[in-house]
């Protein structure tokens, strides 16, 4: 730290230009004016409704001014129209006029297909986090590939990659339906998730089980007082965070310790943590023999099909890299016996020709 001034900020420049500062102010002003405009409209509508009822005293109230903000199509929080959304380059958070919030992962897109006072439907490409305002007037329906997630006030995540779509409910209730869902539809409550394979078999449902999806917690740093205070066991999320950060910082021992703890303490995480362990041993530490043992253990766990196929490929790869082509071919043969039409046939053949 000897090269740096105190405070450290003396060595830093202002991050935003005058133009950017001005633009931010205009956005703040526009958002506040848009909300004030919606409120004024609601007040005016209430005044007309009151006058109507006062003039026609026998008729009942038909309008609820407190809900005026919710009527009509969903808009952006600043009052702008809600069209197709895209997150280019980095994740994007979009706030809506009813207080709901959508976070699109980098490269994801959301296209509304229906939007009025009673429903909001959209098609998602990529992945996103949805926080739908509870007790709102609209039913939400988000489609992803041939899967549809229907919600009524909840928080859920749709994560899509090349192999599967996974819907996880953080709070509330959702209904997931699609040709690939066992029984055609499934109701999920807080903490539950469903993963649907995008492989050749159209109705392969990987797993559906209750699993705690905890909010990420703060993990207290070790301090001199920690010896006196009773030590809390780290949460699942904290262990994942620790493993990820340690791997980024090249502290592979810490990363593997965190993953081993995850696998030991959280049975639902055992497969994923083991896979990650194998990745570190092979890709970061180049301990191919050790990686092969880990992936063999993974395949023996009795996992859903897609994960087993991935485990087999990595097992074959680690054996090949360990200069044991005979063993690699033996495992490749095991894979082909179990998955004669497997989607990873090409990869296995590449590592064990």
């Amino acid at each position, binding site marked *: 730290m000897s090269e740096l001034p105190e*405070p450290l900020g003396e*060595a830093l420049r202002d991050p935003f230009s005058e133009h950017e500062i001005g633009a*931010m102010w205009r956005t*703040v002003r526009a958002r506040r004016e848009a909300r004030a405009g919606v409120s004024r409209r609601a007040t005016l509508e209430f005044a007309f409704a009151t006058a109507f009822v006062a003039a026609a005293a026998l008729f009942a109230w038909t309008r609820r001014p407190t809900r005026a903000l919710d009527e009509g199509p969903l808009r952006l929080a600043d009052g702008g129209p809600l069209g197709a959304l895209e997150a280019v*380059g980095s994740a994007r*958070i979009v706030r809506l006029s009813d207080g709901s919030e959508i976070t699109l992962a980098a490269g994801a897109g959301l296209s509304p297909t229906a939007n009025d006072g009673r429903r909001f439907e959209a098609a998602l490409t990529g992945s996103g986090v949805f926080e739908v305002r509870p007790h709102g007037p609209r039913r939400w329906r988000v489609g992803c590939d041939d899967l549809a997630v229907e919600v009524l006030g909840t928080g859920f995540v749709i994560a899509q990659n090349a192999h599967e779509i996974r819907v996880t409910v953080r709070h509330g209730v959702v209904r997931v339906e699609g040709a690939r869902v066992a029984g055609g539809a499934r109701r999920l409550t807080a903490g539950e998730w469903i993963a649907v394979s995008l492989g050749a078999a159209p109705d392969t449902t990987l797993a559906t089980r209750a699993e705690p999806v905890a909010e*990420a917690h*703060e993990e207290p740093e070790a301090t001199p007082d920690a010896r006196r205070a009773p030590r809390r066991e780290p949460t699942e999320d904290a262990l994942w965070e620790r493993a990820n950060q340690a791997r980024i910082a090249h502290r592979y021992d810490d990363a593997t310790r965190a993953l081993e703890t995850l696998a030991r303490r959280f049975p639902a995480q055992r497969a994923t943590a083991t896979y990650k362990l194998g990745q570190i041993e092979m890709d970061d530490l180049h301990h191919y023999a050790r990686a092969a043992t880990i992936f063999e253990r993974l395949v023996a766990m009795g996992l859903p099909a897609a994960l087993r196929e991935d485990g087999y490929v990595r097992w074959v790869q680690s054996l090949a890299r360990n200069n044991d082509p005979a063993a690699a071919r033996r495992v490749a043969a095991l894979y082909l016996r179990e998955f004669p039409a497997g989607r990873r046939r090409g990869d296995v053949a590449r590592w064990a020709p």
Partner: protein
Amino acid sequence: MSRWARLAAHGVIDGPVVTAHVEVGAQVSAQGAAGSGVCEEPDDATLVARAVRGDGRAEEAIYKRYVRYVAAIAIHLTGSRQEAEDIVQDTFEKALDQLSSLRDGAALRPWLAQITLRQVHRRARRRRLMRLFGLDGSAQDATLDTLASPSASPEVRAELSRVQSVIALANDDARAAWTLHKVEGETLEYTSEVCRCSLATTKRRVAAVESLLRARLRKEER
């Protein structure tokens, strides 16, 4: 005295010298001036009182007075220009909406810092959630080394890069306390007020990050 207090006392903002010139009832405007001194301007309590009464110019004056302060906290804690921009907008939108709840207008600065920290923590939780599900997070395009002053030497940039990699490992609370105290130059007492924790806790959090930095230095020296 914090860095911001020093700059405010001399009417200097980072970069070109700026003078804020105010007449009663007039809009606050900035004029470039070389070597100018400080002109009289309304204090925070006066601006807050005017803004609460609906004075749009007072609201804008509050923004202009503190936008760089809020932006610095946001960008130094998130490392992302886009996130920092969003946080600045969210912070001022909320602050101006809730200004009437600020009982002591003179406490505007720490109050704004508290709102900023809440926004930063909220987004950090969102980022962790997205990482947990394998979704991409925001680009880290504004780390300390990329924000180095143009005149910074390569050695300073290298140290900033090392500091950045270490503080990224600290938890949100420790990183916030350390950034306010060591980067923004705030006192420990001010930092504990903004972070809403005891002075002892603030000292522990700052010490925790300092300990990480020393450990990294020792590792590199081996």
